[in-house]
């Protein structure tokens, strides 16, 4: 076939929200060739998801096409009637979405939902349809597909649901698969499996993929070509190697620089100042101008042209415009973030702030009319860890491994069923009444979803001051209000924000409010439960910088719960890797990251997509998923998924083995035979 499979030309989509329309997609053009993976990269609100919906003519009711064309083969999709469009959807262009949790209909079986596509586009009925459904489920790697086809979405794990979505998309045999953040809601190990599946399918079927993501690691893993979107426009387009080697647009560069990783430890991460400009304003110059460190007067006056930079690369930036010869000296030099030495760090020693020994949180499973206890969920099952003063312990693991339960049990938001928690020598699990309330002052919590963790009917001042009132900090309301001001200032918010309500803030600002709320009672330990996983990379960088600065200024200890290993590398001093309710490996972060010893840690590390143009590094792919914590496997919990398991692994749980200074792992293979 000659010519592109899909070409989008000068597409403009407006959202009517009262007042001037928001130009969410503002004149974008790109084309996708058969069999290639084209990535649209950008942060939330840049218009990438709206572009995807626009391709399928599935815009929300407020959206409308202002201009442009979308040509699939030889058909302009914007000029055919809706009925003809329905033959394109699912048949020629299929789509998978970010949240497999909500993208499947909860009251229909998986088989019915896949079968529907076959009936619609392939004319299959009855037994032929059911057989094909089973075949498709098998193709996407679902074990026992005949039984799974009869099940409902809630009976499947997140990774399996995304596989079902993919099976559904493949059912019509499409030429193009639009995948909107297909792995964002999944764990790294699941993400690696799903990305691998997409690559295999692409090779097998020759289907093209339009992949939408904000994750540079996913870009490196998947892309043939990349387009970077900013404020409704494509600002750069390049083949994979060129892009990862040296992105041209200042915005693309910033995205790379704000990634947390080891080499940037101790130094602040690059942040992009300011916010994305509202899309209903008239732009005169470059849209990135107000936030760009390399701007010069022309940028505010003239919109940059789409410049061919050679070798298949295009960029929308005055710096690369050969017609602009008068760029002042110095502006054009790129300033990649400086790498600095490790920050001040206290060695872990006996005087740990928090010591957790053999912590257990078991939930009873109750069944039947009399609610008899028929078993237990061993969410946390004998966990031991210590957080030294003024340092950060990262607790990492897949979702469902018990990380959050551990955090909640330590803060006594959940009752532990066994073990010991000591905070400064105080037996935390024995505290009652007023003593327990005093503990709440020492240990604070920051949650994953800042919006959901604030009362929407309270203003910022009340949210931040509530803890102070409860703990009797500040004698008068005026005194507390003064403290609210200084707290907001400390977390980088304008104190004038205090009379506003949570919905008026962006995600990053909301998380700052939550941090201010936690700091209001002057805690010594803050349990951060995935505090940046709901945020964009550049915003994540701001929050990580803030947490690091606060630790230095206030000597805070963090128990940092996360599944993001890049964040661990950047922020943590020590790391504990958790699997099915227990710690399988712990040690200083440099040590564990550089020399992981437990097979699970190794698999976890190798599953993380690397922003690295080189491919071909060793990769350990985990089969299957986290087993249910209500019936953990015998012996070492990890043995059913372990690539190097031996017979003895099935028999008993391995004891801790010291594998380096302060570095231990629970694995039979590390112990002397």
């Amino acid at each position: 076939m000659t010519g592109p499979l899909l070409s989008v030309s000068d597409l403009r989509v407006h959202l009517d929200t009262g007042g001037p329309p928001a130009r969410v997609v503002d004149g974008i053009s790109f084309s996708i060739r058969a069999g290639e993976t084209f990535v649209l990269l950008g942060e939330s609100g840049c218009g990438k998801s709206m572009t995807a919906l626009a391709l399928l003519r599935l815009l929300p009711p407020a959206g409308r096409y202002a201009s442009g064309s979308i040509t699939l083969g030889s058909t302009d999709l914007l000029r055919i009637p809706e009925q003809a469009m329905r033959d394109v959807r699912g048949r020629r262009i299929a789509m998978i979405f970010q949240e497999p949790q909500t993208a499947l209909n909860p009251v229909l079986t998986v088989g019915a939902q896949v079968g529907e596509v076959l009936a619609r586009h392939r004319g299959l009925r009855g037994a032929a349809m059911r057989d094909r459904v089973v075949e498709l489920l098998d193709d996407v790697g679902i074990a026992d597909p005949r039984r799974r086809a009869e099940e409902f979405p809630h009976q499947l794990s997140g990774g399996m649901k995304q596989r079902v979505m993919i099976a559904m998309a493949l059912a019509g045999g499409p030429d193009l698969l639009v995948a909107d953040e297909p792995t964002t809601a999944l764990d790294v190990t699941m993400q690696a499996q799903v990305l691998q599946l997409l690559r295999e399918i692409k090779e097998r079927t020759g289907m093209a993929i339009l992949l939408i993501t904000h994750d540079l690691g996913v870009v490196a893993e998947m892309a043939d070509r990349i387009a970077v979107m900013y404020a409704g426009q494509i600002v750069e387009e390049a083949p994979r190697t060129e892009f990862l080697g040296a992105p041209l647009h200042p915005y693309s560069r910033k995205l790379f620089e704000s990634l947390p990783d080891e080499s940037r430890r101790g130094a602040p991460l690059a942040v992009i100042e300011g916010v994305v400009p509202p899309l209903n304003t008239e732009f005169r110059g470059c849209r990135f101008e107000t936030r760009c460190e390399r701007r010069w007067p022309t940028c505010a006056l003239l919109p940059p042209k789409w410049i061919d930079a050679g070798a298949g690369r295009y960029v929308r930036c005055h710096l690369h415009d050969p017609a602009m010869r008068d760029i002042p000296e110095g502006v054009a030099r790129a300033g990649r973030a400086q790498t600095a030495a490790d920050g001040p760090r206290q060695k872990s020693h006996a005087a740990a702030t928090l010591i957790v020994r053999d912590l257990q949180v078991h939930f009873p499973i109750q069944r039947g009319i009399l609610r008899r206890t028929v078993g237990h969920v061993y969410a946390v099952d004998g966990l031991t860890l210590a957080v030294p003063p003024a340092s950060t312990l990262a607790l990492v693991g897949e979702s469902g491994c018990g990380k959050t339960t551990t955090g909640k049990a330590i803060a006594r938001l959940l009752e532990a069923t066994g073990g010991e928690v000591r905070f400064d020598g105080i037996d935390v699990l024995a505290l009652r009444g007023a003593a327990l309330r005093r503990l709440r002052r020492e240990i604070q919590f920051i949650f994953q979803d800042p919006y959901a963790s604030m009362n929407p009917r309270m203003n910022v001042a009340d949210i931040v001051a509530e803890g102070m009132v409860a703990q009797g900090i500040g004698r008068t309301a005026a005194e507390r209000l003064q403290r609210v001001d200084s707290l907001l200032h400390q977390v980088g918010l304008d104190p004038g924000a205090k009379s506003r309500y949570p919905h008026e803030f962006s995600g990053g600002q909301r998380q700052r409010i939550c941090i201010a709320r936690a700091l209001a009672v002057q805690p010594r330990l803050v349990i951060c439960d995935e505090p940046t996983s709901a945020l964009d990379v550049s915003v994540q960088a701001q929050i990580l910088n803030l947490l690091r600065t606060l630790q230095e200024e206030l000597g805070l200890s963090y128990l940092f719960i996360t599944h993001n290993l890049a964040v661990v590398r950047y922020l943590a001093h020590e790391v504990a890797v958790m699997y099915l309710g227990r710690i399988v490996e712990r040690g200083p972060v440099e040590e564990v990251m550089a020399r992981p010893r437990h097979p699970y840690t190794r698999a976890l590390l190798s599953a993380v997509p690397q922003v690295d143009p080189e491919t071909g590094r060793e990769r350990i792919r985990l089969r299957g998923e986290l087993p249910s914590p209500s019936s953990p496997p015998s012996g070492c919990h990890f043995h059913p998924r372990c690539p190097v398991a031996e017979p003895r692994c099935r028999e008993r749980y391995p004891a801790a083995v010291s594998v380096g200074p302060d570095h231990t792992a629970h694995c039979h293979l590390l112990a002397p035979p």
Partner: protein
Amino acid sequence: MIGFLLTRLFSLAAVALGVVSLVFLLLHLVPGDPVEVMLGESATPADRGELRRSLGLDQPIAVQWARYLGKLSHGQLGESLHSREPIVELVTGRVRATAQLGAAALVVSIAIGLPLGVGAALRDGRRLDRAALALTALAMSIPSFWLGPMLILLFSITLGWLPVSGRAEAGAIVLPALTLGIPLAAALTRMVRASMLQVLSEDYLRTARAKGLPPARVTVQHALRNAALPIMTVLGLQLGGVLAGAIITETIFQWPGLGQLTIESIQRRDYPVVQACVLIISLTYVVVNAATDMLCGLLDPRVRMA
């Protein structure tokens, strides 16, 4: 699935026992002495004592309660003080009439409420939606004691199409069913609309559209099936309220149902009959709700496996 139904049936039995006991207790708390009502002012203390003993009213309340339950379990409701007929016979025909009226009202409400609610949700904020909202607000605020006579005035007296009252003539059920069904239809329209609006913004509807399914299938198979759950739960509650509302409608249209019997018995101070009526109405309410609960379980796999 069987386990789910058994659990629900068990809790239904427990609630029914509670209702029966509560009705029994309430009647004992009501001021006034049934013996006095039965024998009149002129009876001698000896006569009263005699009757009290023969009715078992001299026993401790726990014993009376146990006996009452025993009788109920054999389907005995006692006899009317007014007509001396067994209450079971008195009530059977009445229950049938009310059930007929309730079913007809339900048909009216679903026939109007479901399509109107779905249509309003699909055209959120546009003309049909605004008209539906205005109409339902009006329909819900009209009291049945006004709506009933107006319907009679229009269809029976002016147009002469339908009988004024009673149950004997053909078509007699139409007007009472409309009187009872229209406010229910209005409430249902709003519930369907709200529930559909919620579901229409769900991700899985976008998935369904992205599959290339025609709009009718998206609306019925994907949206309505999910929207049905909250609708049914509320409809169950509403239907209970409708049965209580039937008292007024039945009185207006001289419909020989349970509501009418209740009113008559109250006027005649026929306490055992009142007790039986209250019991039947309450139990119907409980049973209807348990039935919706089970129906939800059938429709939503998440409910039945929880």
